[in-house]
């Protein structure tokens, strides 16, 4: 099956600065695909390249098998949801949604019919005549989506659309977006720096850093099986211990760090002497029991967050180690400064190149 979007050795340079470095990937039809990364990593540039507002310095972009080189944004089968939504303030809700149809010369009756359908889809059936200024944040979001869907794009591109909303609304909109995508079946390409968003909404995620793709995979892959140190530390919280590999046996390895010798899974088959970092998720760190790896230090902080409690320990080399427990009462944590120890299993630790 032809991929919905194919990016082939895409490089985008601005003068001396390279925003996107030789990125290649394929996005499947009907997929909810996210680009996740810190600001400046190149995700916005890729989005603008796909939608036609940014010309690639090198490489090709194919949408539905067709090479997009030289095709302007108004002729591409894409629709973009801007970060500030860019709704037309002087037009009503219905006029906004129907704009794409209007410029394609769709006759008024047909246009009104389609706009009506979309208004129903976004549950704003009786709000067609309102001005944009009268809408709430969530309503504006939905209008932006309806406006994009009206032109029946092959790919819908979303540029951090939820970043301006407040927390509860944001979480609600995540579900809405996902539901709409499932109902309509269009390929969604979503960019964000919030990994919670990426994990809950996406079928697959591409983690980016400084113009390069670090890893592509679904939420589980990216969270539980990070392939690079960046992914391990960017997605979710993680404890990282840097050092040098001293022993390798099977799929495990031993690493000498500033807090002692630790063992973990060596999926990347690093050799002895290689510089590496061992990562253990805080929720896999155990407190109050012994294990295959033990860390001793002094109690630093116990942060109670309701569902979880984050216990922080200060290791002898000065670094902090965090263990996250669910449902455990904070009062069990010894007072600040007294001796504590954390433990973790070798199979819960991952060793990645430094």
């Amino acid at each position, binding site marked *: 099956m032809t991929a919905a979007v194919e990016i082939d050795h895409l490089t985008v340079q601005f003068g001396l600065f390279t925003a996107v470095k030789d990125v290649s990937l394929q996005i499947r039809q009907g997929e909810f695909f996210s680009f996740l990364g810190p600001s400046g990593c190149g995700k916005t540039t890729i989005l603008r390249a796909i939608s036609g507002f940014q010309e690639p310095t090198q490489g090709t972009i194919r949408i539905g098998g067709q090479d997009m080189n030289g095709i302007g944004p108004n002729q591409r089968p894409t629709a973009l949801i801007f970060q500030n939504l860019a709704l037309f303030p002087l037009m009503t809700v219905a006029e906004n949604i129907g704009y794409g149809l*209007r*410029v*394609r010369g769709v006759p008024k009756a047909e246009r009104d019919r389609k706009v009506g359908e979309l208004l129903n889809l976004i549950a704003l059936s009786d709000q067609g005549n*309102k001005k944009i200024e*009268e809408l709430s944040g969530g309503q504006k979001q939905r209008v932006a989506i309806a406006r994009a869907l009206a*032109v029946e794009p092959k790919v819908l591109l979303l540029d951090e659309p939820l970043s301006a909303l407040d927390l509860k*609304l944001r979480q609600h909109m995540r579900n809405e977006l996902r539901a709409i995508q499932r109902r309509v079946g269009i390929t969604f390409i979503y960019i964000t720096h919030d990994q919670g968003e990426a994990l809950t909404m996406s079928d697959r995620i591409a983690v980016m850093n400084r113009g390069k793709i670090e890893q592509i995979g679904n939420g589980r892959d990216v969270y539980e099986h990070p392939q690079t140190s960046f992914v391990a530390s960017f997605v979710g919280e993680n404890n990282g211990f840097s050092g040098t590999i001293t022993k390798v046996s099977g799929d495990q390895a031993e690493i000498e760090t500033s807090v002692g010798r630790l063992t973990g899974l060596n999926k990347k088959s690093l050799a002895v002497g290689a510089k590496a970092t061992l990562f253990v998720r805080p929720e896999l760190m155990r407190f109050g029991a012994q294990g295959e790896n033990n860390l001793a230090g002094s109690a630093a902080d116990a942060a109670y967050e309701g569902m979880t409690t984050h216990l922080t320990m200060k290791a002898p080399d000065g670094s902090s180690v965090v263990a996250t427990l669910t449902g455990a009462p904070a009062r069990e944590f010894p007072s600040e400064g007294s001796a504590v120890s954390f433990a973790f299993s070798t199979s819960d630790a991952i060793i990645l190149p430094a």
Partner: protein
Amino acid sequence: MSSKTVMNVMLAFYMAIFFGFLFGPLIVMGISSFNTSTYPQVYPIEGLTLTWFEKLLNDRDMVYGMKNSLWIGMWVVLLSVPLGLAAAMMMSQIYSKARSFYYVIVVSPVLTPGVIIGISTVVFWRDLTTATNSKFLYDGVFLAVLGQSSFISAYCMLMFMSRLNRFDRAQEEAGLDLGASQTQVFFHILLPFLRPAIFSSAVLAFLSSFENYNTTTFAILADKTLTTVLAGRVRQGTTPAISALAVLIIAVTIVGAIIYELVKRREDRERQARLDAAHAAELRELESIEKATLHA
């Protein structure tokens, strides 16, 4: 007395003198228009009358000049607003090294004395129309419109430039993204956004044209406008009919200003209502989300 009170007293004194100087002559003129004496004077008041207003409206030259001024004003608006808009749009797109040169040229009419603009317009078109055998173009109204528009377009351009600066380019991109051509973006998205600037530059253009004298007096050739008739009358001799004209103009502008203020207030109220509605919608939205999560 504290230094603050001294300052306040001095300020009040200064304002009194300032606004006295500013309004004094006009009040004098206004009063003189109602005074029966044939020579415009404020003191003594020999009697109150409206005859001067009557004489004014029967002054055929004045009426003709007024009609001409309105006609020219209309054409100036029709010419200056599109020129100003084009120049403003061009400003952001012109080759950057040429930009300051371009700016000097288009702003220069504002800084050039009006008489010079009038003279140069006449000289140029006289030569051009003789050389190209189009003498019919060498006409007072035509030249007055061109002469006035040369600097009035610059005013319009400056107004458009400041409005354009506040245009959200993302809207242009949104239009393109939805499939509009650049031309469609211009007409559907940019022009509606510029509507306030179009309106205010049209008003400015009309008023500037109507009251212009320096340029018009050269460019109008043998024809007349209200200002040239007025200048002629004033040179011939002074009568209170002229004061009457001033009073009329002031009255018309006050009425215009009041209407404008009322319209603006109504627009502001409507806008506030819309923002309030949005706020209410936000609250309702948050409420319904809370309710949904409680039942979930």
